[in-house]
C-alpha cells in the first residue's frame, strides 16, 4: 500500500544532513552530525575489522579515545555508543597488551590470598582514580580494586557486573594494574568458590539421572501429532 504522507516529516535534515568537521586519527573529514563514531569511520570509507563487535554497547571491542572541540581533556567511549559532534577528534584504541594470569578456578587453595600471587600489582593501587574516569560503563573501578585487595569479593562481583572488558582502565593505571582482569578473576572466584551451592539444582540433576521423568517421556514421545498438540494445549 502506498505511503500516506500526512504524518511523514520530511525534514531538511533527512534530505540534507548537517555536516560536521571531525578528525579521525589525526586526519580531517566531514560527516553527518549525530552519527556514531563507528558509523563515521564507515562514512569516510574506512573498512572496520578491529574496533567493531556487537555494535550494541556490550562487547567492548570499540574502545575509543576522543576529545571535543577546544577541550584538552581526552575522554573514553565505546565507538558504537557515541555520537560525533563538530570539532571532535578520536582514535580507536588498539588492544592493550595487559598480562592475564592463568589459573584453574576450582584448584586454587585460597582464592583471596591467591589474588596476590596471580596479580601481585593489585595492592599497589595509588588511588589516582584514573581507571574510574576512563570507564565508559561508569563503574567505580578504583573502589573495586581496593575492595578486591581487602577480600570483599562479593561487592566487586556486583560492581563489575556491567563491565564490558573494553580494557580502557588498564593503560591509564600508574601501578600497571589491569583492573578489569583483576575483577574478572575476583568475580569468577566469587561465583565458583564463595557462593552457596544451589540445592534445588542438584536435586533436579539427580531426578533426571535417576529417571524420574522416564514414564512421562515415554507417554509423550509415543503420541501422534494430533494427540501431542491436544496435550500441549492443556499446559497453560
Amino acid at each position: 500500500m502506498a505511503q500516506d504522507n500526512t504524518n511523514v516529516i520530511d525534514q531538511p535534515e533527512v534530505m540534507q544532513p548537517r555536516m560536521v568537521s571531525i578528525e579521525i586519527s589525526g586526519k580531517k573529514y566531514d560527516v553527518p552530525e549525530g552519527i556514531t563514531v563507528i558509523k563515521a569511520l564507515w562514512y569516510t570509507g574506512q573498512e572496520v575489522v578491529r574496533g567493531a563487535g556487537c555494535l550494541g554497547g556490550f562487547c567492548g571491542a570499540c574502545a575509543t579515545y576522543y576529545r571535543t572541540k577546544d577541550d584538552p581533556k581526552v575522554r573514553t567511549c565505546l565507538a558504537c555508543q557515541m555520537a560525533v559532534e563538530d570539532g571532535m577528534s578520536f582514535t580507536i584504541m588498539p588492544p592493550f597488551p595487559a598480562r592475564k594470569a592463568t589459573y584453574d578456578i576450582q584448584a586454587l587453595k585460597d582464592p583471596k590470598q591467591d589474588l596476590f600471587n596471580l596479580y601481585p600489582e593489585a595492592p599497589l593501587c595509588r588511588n589516582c582514580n584514573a581507571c574510574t574516569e576512563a570507564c565508559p560503563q561508569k563503574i567505580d573501578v578504583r573502589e573495586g580494586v581496593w575492595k578486591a585487595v581487602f577480600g570483599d569479593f562479593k561487592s566487586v562481583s556486583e560492581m563489575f557486573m556491567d563491565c564490558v572488558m573494553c580494557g580502557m582502565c588498564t593503560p591509564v593505571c600508574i601501578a600497571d594494574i589491569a583492573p578489569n582482569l583483576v575483577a574478572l578473576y575476583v568475580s569468577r572466584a566469587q561465583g565458583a568458590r564463595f557462593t552457596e551451592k544451589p540445592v534445588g539444582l542438584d536435586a533436579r540433576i539427580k531426578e533426571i539421572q535417576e529417571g524420574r521423568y522416564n514414564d512421562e517421556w515415554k507417554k509423550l514421545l509415543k503420541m501422534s501429532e494430533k494427540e501431542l498438540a491436544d496435550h500441549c494445549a492443556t499446559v497453560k
Partner: protein
Amino acid sequence: MDIHALQQIVHQTRDARRKQTIPKFSPADRDQLIHKYHPDYRASAYRPIRFGPNADEKTVVELATLLEGDSLITDEMDLTPQYTTDVLVIGGGGAGCAAALHAHHAGAKVMLATKLRLGDSNSVMAQGGMQISVAPEDSPVTHFIDTLKGGHMHNDHDLLKVMVEEGPSIAKWLIELGVLFDRQADGNLHVKKGGGSSKPRLLTCSDYTGLEIMRVLKDEVLNQKIQLLEFCAAVELLSDEHGQCTGAIFKDLDNHRFVVVAAKSVILATGGIGRLHIQGFPTSNHYGATGDGLCLSYRMGAKLAHIDTFQYHPSGAVYPEQLVGQLVTEGIRSEGGHLVNAKGERFVNELDTRDVVSSSIIRECEEGRGIRTMSGRVGVWLDTPLLDAEHGPGTVEKHFPAMMMQFERFGIDISKDPVLIYPTLHYQNGGVKIDTNSETNVKNLFVAGEASGGLHGRNRLMGNSLLDLMVFGKRSGLTAASRAASMSHGKLTVQHLQRFRADAKKHGNVSGVTSPMILPAYTRKT
C-alpha cells in the same frame, strides 16, 4: 515538526488511552494480519534455492543468493596446511567456546578460529536469560512442551529432549566455572518467567546474562591455552575423497592471506544472519552475523532446515540513530506500556504474540500512521512514561535501569518521553540440520548454536538460545573429540567445490556473488 514536537501527541492522548481496552485479535483476523504484514509471509521476499541439498525449497532472496554463491577458493589452490589439529572450532561465541572447552577437556588438540575477536558474538548481547527447568514446580517435560508450542510444533523432538534434559547439568558446569547467576535468599537459583513459558524458568545474571557467561567462557578458553586464530574468517571447508570434512580454509583479515587448517573434525559455530538485513530490516545482531556457516556447510552438501523462518522482535529502537535495531525490552509492554501511532491511537493489544505485534506495527507504518525520524526511518511510539503514571513515579528507573542508561547517553529520559520502535531482525530460527550429537549429514562436520536448525521449530522461545549454545556446544565438542581420537587425518581437497560448481553451472548460475559475505558492506564507497 521535529520528533520532539511529535512526541507531544503521546502525552496528550495518554489519559484517554488508559481507559481503553484493546481486545486480542480473533484467530481469523490474526491470520489475515500476519499473512499480509509479517515479513515471513512476504512472497516477494522469497525465492526457491535453485540447486544443492535444499533445491527448490524457498528462503529469503538474500540468503538464497549467498547459498548459491561461488567460493573465493580456486581448484588449484595450494592446500598445504599451516596448522594441524584434532578438532577445529569455527566461531568464538557461546557455542564455539563451549565446544572448544569440552573438546579440550576430553583430551583433543583444539584450535578455535574466529572472524573477529574471541567472544565477539550474539551470545554476549543476550539479556533475557537462559531457560533451564530448575524450579520445583517445573520439569524438563514442561520445558519441552512449552518450547514445542512456541515452535509451532515443528521442533525436532530428539534435539529438544536432549536440550531440556541436559539444561540443569549445564547450569552446574557454568556455576563451577564462576558464572554468577541471580539467587534467591535461600541460595537457590532465581528464576523469571519468560514469554510463552508456563513456568518461571529463566536463569539470569542481572540483565547481562550473555555478557557474564561469555566473560567467564572467554577467560576459561584463555586459561586452558586453547590455540586461537583470531581475525580469520572461514571461507571454505575441506573434504576428502569420500566427502567427509577434513578442515577449513580461512582468510586472515589482517594480511589478506589464506590459512589452511587440517583437522580430523570441524565444528561450525558461526551464528546467525541478522547482518544480511533481509528485507531491509535493521537488526539486533552482532557485526559478524552474516550466516557464513550456512554457505560453507551448504556447499559441502549439508542439508538445511527451516531456513524460511526468522524472528523479528517487535520493539527495536528507531531513534536515536545510534540505537537503531537495538532491543527495547518486552518488559515495557508486559508492564502495560502502550504502542501508539502518529495519530495518538493504540492499534494492537500489546501483549499479543510477537508475530502479531510486529505485524501490526508494520501495518501502521505502511499505511502512513508511522512517525519518521530525522534520518528517514519510520516507527511507532512505545509509551514508556505511562509506566510511571500507572505504577507510580520511579517505576521505569527501578525496573529497567540498563535501558534507562542506554537512552540517557543520548539525552533521552525514557521515564518522561516515549521511545520510537519498529520490528528488528533478531534470530534465525532454522539452520544446518543436525543430529543429537550436533553432527550434520556430512561426516565429521558438526554445527552448534544459531547456525544449526531444527531445535527451535519455526519460532524460538525467549531464553532457549543460550541453553542451545551450551548443550550442543558441549555435545559437538565431546563427539568431535572422541571421533578424532580414533581416526587419522583425511586428505585435504576441495572436491566438493568442483561438484558444487558443476551444479551451479547446470542451473545457469551467473550471479557473480562470492560467499560467505564475511562482513556487511557498510563502508561508503563514493
